[in-house]
C-alpha cells in the first residue's frame, strides 16, 4: 500500500503536467473564439472520466485479462520506464494536429497528452493495489497542475517547461523501476 502523497508523486511523474503544457504551448495560441479556459477544462473532464473508469475498473480489467495485480506491476513499470526514457531523450510529445477548440480538447489534449499510456497503466496498477478512490484522488493533483498550466499557456516559459518535463521523465523512470521491483518481489 502506498500513501496518498506517494501516489500523488507517482501520478505526477506518469502524467507529466510540464510535458502536457509544453506540447500545448508549442502548438501556439488557439484560434478558437471561446474563452481560453474552455478547451483545457473539457480535456481535463475527459481525462478525469477516463482515469476514473480505469482506476475504479482496474480489478475488473485485470480479472478480464487474467493477470494478477503483482504481475501487472511489472508490465506497468516497463511501459512507464519506456515513456520516461522517451521524454528524457526527445522532450515532450508533439502530436501533429491542426484541430482547435473542442476537437483539440479531445485530440491531442485529452488523448494522448493527458490520458497517456503511462498514466493509464499507472491508473490500472495503483487502482488495483490502492483502490480506485485513492488513485483518482492522487491523480487529481497532477490533473489540477496540468489544468493551471494549460490555462496559463506559458509560452515564454517553454525552455523551463522542457527542462521540467525531462526531469519528470527521469522521475518516471525511477518510479517505474520501483514498480517493477515491487512486482518481482511481491508474493
Amino acid at each position, binding site marked *: 500500500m502506498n500513501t496518498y502523497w506517494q501516489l500523488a508523486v507517482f501520478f505526477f511523474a506518469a502524467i507529466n503536467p510540464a510535458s502536457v503544457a509544453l506540447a500545448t504551448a508549442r502548438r501556439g495560441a488557439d484560434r478558437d473564439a471561446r474563452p481560453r479556459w474552455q478547451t483545457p477544462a473539457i480535456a481535463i473532464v475527459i481525462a478525469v472520466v477516463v482515469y476514473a473508469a480505469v482506476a475504479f475498473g482496474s480489478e475488473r480489467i485485470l480479472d478480464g485479462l487474467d493477470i494478477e495485480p503483482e*504481475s501487472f506491476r511489472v*508490465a506497468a513499470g516497463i*511501459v512507464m520506464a519506456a515513456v520516461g526514457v522517451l521524454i528524457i531523450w526527445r522532450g515532450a510529445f508533439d*502530436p501533429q*494536429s491542426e484541430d482547435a477548440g473542442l476537437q483539440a480538447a479531445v485530440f491531442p489534449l485529452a*488523448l494522448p497528452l493527458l490520458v497517456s499510456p503511462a498514466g493509464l497503466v499507472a491508473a490500472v496498477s495503483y487502482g488495483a493495489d490502492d483502490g480506485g478512490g485513492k488513485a483518482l484522488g492522487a491523480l487529481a493533483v497532477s490533473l489540477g497542475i496540468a489544468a493551471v498550466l494549460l490555462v496559463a499557456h506559458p509560452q515564454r516559459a517553454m525552455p523551463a517547461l522542457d527542462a521540467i518535463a525531462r526531469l519528470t521523465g527521469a522521475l518516471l523512470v525511477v518510479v517505474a523501476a520501483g514498480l517493477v521491483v515491487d512486482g518481482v518481489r*511481491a*508474493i
Partner: protein
Amino acid sequence: MTRGMAAVLGVWAVGAIGLRVVVVPPQFCPPVTSAGALESAKAAAGWIERAQQPDGSYTYEFNADESTYSAEYNSVRHAGVTTSLYQLAAIDPSVLPTADRGLTWMQDHMARYNGWAALQDPFDGTIELGADALMLTALAQRRIATNDPQYDSLMHEVARFILVMQQDDGSFLLRWLPQTGAPDPTERSKYATGESFWALAMMHRLFPTEGWDVPTRKVADYLSLHRDTVEKQKFPPWADQWAAYGLAEMAAWPGPGPQLNEANVTYARSLAERFGFLVRVESQRRDNAFSDVIHGRQARAAGMGTWGEGLDSLWRLSGLDSRLAHMQAKIGERAACTSGMLAERQIKAGDPNTGPDVPRLGGWFTDGVTRMDDQQHALSALLRGREILDSRSKEQK
C-alpha cells in the same frame, strides 16, 4: 482529429498487444479440490510404488519416449522420496510398506562412527549430509504418522551425525570423508543446510527436552542472515523450501512464543515473495514452442513441487506467527495455484501411451523424462496443500 486519434490508438494497440504477448500473458491456475489433490498425491505414490525395486530402491529416472531407465542413483533423492511417502502415510497407511522398504534400503547402507550413524552411498561410498538429513526427516515423518518409537535410537544416531557436520556459525559442511575421519572443510551445499535445519527442528518437536532447539536456532539464523552472502547466491534468497519447512516447524514448537526472531521472520517473508513470483511466472507459461521461446520452458514437477512445499509451509507459518499473518491469503492463493498446475500436468488414467510397459500413470514428465524427485516434491506439495484448498473453499462458501 479522426486520423490523428486513429494513428495514436493504433500505436497504443500494437504496444498493448506486444505487452500482452511478451510480458503479461494470462495467468492460468487450474482449479483443484482438496480431494482431487489427495488423489493426485496418491497417484504419485502409486508411480513410486510400482517402480520400486525389490531391494527398496526406487526407479531413479525413466525416459518414456525411449522406454529406457537411467543407471544413475542418488541417495539424497532416495531419502527425499521416502520422506514424501511417510508424509502421505499419515493419511494413507497403505503406502507404509513401500516407504518402509525404502527405509530398509537406507538401513542396509549405514556407516557408524563414534556414536553416530550416516547413510553411505553404495555407489560412490560418499557420506553426504543431505541424504542423512532427509533420512532423519523420513524417520520423523514415520514417527508422526505411526507413533511407533522403534527407530528413535536410529534417529538420534543420524541427528548426532548432523551435529558433527555443523560449524560454529550454524552452517554445515557437505561431506564426511572416511579417509580423513573428518568433514571435508571445502564443500557446502545449498540444499543440505535447509534439509538439516528441518531435520533438527523436527528432532526438537519429537524430543523437546533434549536441547535440539539450540543447533536448530543457530542454523535458522545462519540461513536468515548469512547463507546467501557466504555461499554467494546470485539471486538471493535461494528458493529453499527446506528452510520454509524448518521455519514452520520451529514456529509450531511447544512453549511460549514467538519462536522465530525478527531475522527469521524477514527471511520467511523474502522466501514467500520468491516462491510467489516463481508461481506467478509459471502460471503464465504454456506447453507450446512459442511460450517456450518467450517465457521459458514449463518447470519440471520437481521444481514446481518445491515451490508448493515452500508455500504450504509458509502458509502454516503465517497462521502461527502474527507478524506474517497479513501474507497468508496471498501465500494460500499461490499454493493453490501450484496444486492446480501440478494436478493438471500429471499423467492420468486414459492418457495416451500409459500402460504396464510404459510406466507413466501418476508421474510428471518433462520432454518425455521423469525422475523420482518429480513425484516426490509434487506429492508433498499436493498433500500439504490440501489444508489450504480446504480453507479457501470454506472462505468461498
